[in-house]
């Protein structure tokens, strides 16, 4: 699967971020994207083939697999990575819009198109809130669908056409569980980074506005 576009997006975003934002990009890139591509994808590669039920009834394995894994862990992981990286596009677009406007009017409209103030600050804060929302949303989805990050060795299935309650065995459950915990931990780390960036920006700009108002009052 070609993740090149996400890599380019993240390196583009890096330019317009604060320091904490750059740490976030590094964490997403190395501990989530790289681990996904290099390790996780291969673990889940043959999950359907290796899912074995203790029965010869045709169709039973398919139906049971579909019942216990409506959306595969790995697909959820990939979706999460994409959704969490996308809000940064808002910032990229806004900066491009500013630069375009300056070119169109042929004069310096902003202190610097990349400087985070005014409209760009709002966009940046919205992108942070969206990122946090998506992270929490996906973690909640994982919990709802799979009851946490536990992967059982054995599931009992009795959906037609399985004739009665059948034992089905999941392949590599321990390895999957370890990587799912890794995914959960990095998600939480990213949420913490985003929250601290949010508070840092809000704090910094409230202080700036307060000081501006204070000096204006005294003039």
């Amino acid at each position, binding site marked *: 699967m070609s993740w090149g576009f996400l890599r380019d997006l993240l390196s583009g975003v890096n330019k317009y971020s604060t320091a904490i934002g750059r740490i976030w990009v*590094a964490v997403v890139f190395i501990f989530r994207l*790289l*681990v996904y*591509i290099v390790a996780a994808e291969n673990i889940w590669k043959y999950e359907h083939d290796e899912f074995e039920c*203790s029965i010869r009834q045709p169709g039973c394995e398919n139906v049971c697999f579909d019942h216990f894994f409506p959306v595969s862990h790995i697909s959820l992981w990939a979706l999460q990575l994409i959704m969490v990286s996308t809000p940064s596009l808002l910032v990229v677009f806004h900066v491009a819009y500013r630069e375009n406007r300056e070119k169109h009017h042929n004069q310096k409209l902003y202190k610097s198109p990349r400087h985070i103030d005014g409209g760009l600050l709002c966009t940046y804060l919205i992108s942070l809130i969206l990122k946090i929302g998506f992270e929490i949303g996906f973690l909640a989805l994982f919990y709802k669908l799979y009851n946490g990050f536990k992967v059982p060795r054995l599931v009992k299935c009795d959906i037609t056409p399985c004739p009665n309650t059948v034992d089905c*065995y999941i392949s*590599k459950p321990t390895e999957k569980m370890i990587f799912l915990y890794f995914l959960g931990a990095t998600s939480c780390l990213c949420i913490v980074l985003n929250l601290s960036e949010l508070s840092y920006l809000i704090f910094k700009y409230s202080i700036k506005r307060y000081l501006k108002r204070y000096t204006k009052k005294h003039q």
Partner: protein
Amino acid sequence: IDWGTLQAVLGGVNKHSTSIGKIWLTVLFIFRIMILVVAAERVWGDEQDDFICNTLQPGCRNVCYDHFFPISHIRLWALQLIFVSTPALLVAMHVAYRRHEKKRQFRNGEKINIEELKNVKFHIRGPLWWTYTSSIFFRIVFEAVFMYVFYYMYDGYQMPRLVKCNAWPCPNIVDCFVSRPTEKTTFTIFMLAVSGICMMLNLAELCYLVIKICMKEPKRTT
């Protein structure tokens, strides 16, 4: 497998490393990442398909495989490489911060040669020395931790030909046969040896940096 970007980042770090650091990077790329990508994938590719147990009981093979290989060797090596390469990022970030400071000075009107700014090489002194030394320390720690985890999880570095498995639903003690055990043992020992070499290079670099700083101190005080 997309190691290209890690390569790009580490290549950037290369400029600001000591000579031992450059040797370490070369060893990392050629003997570890390339070998992992080219050879290990081929050898471990069919590990579960060709793991055969002497029973027709459905599910027994899955359970036995999971019991004896909680994490596959190649995944552990991939994680080890990622963790061992990450401290170099600290150095890259510190250098980027210094470069940013110089750019700011230039923008504020001080006279700095633009060409010099582009190709500036930061010498490992002061705060950068601390960042660099702690990154090497963390590298050594991560290498050691992963080598220990390997040893602990797999009871040594040899891949057995046959494992005896008794986990449910296997009806009784079942013989299970691992695919390509000799080839896997060879690669495991190779990767272990290269890890050891990398660790020694890191230790040597650490000693070199410490000695360099200690030699400079008396000169400054006299």
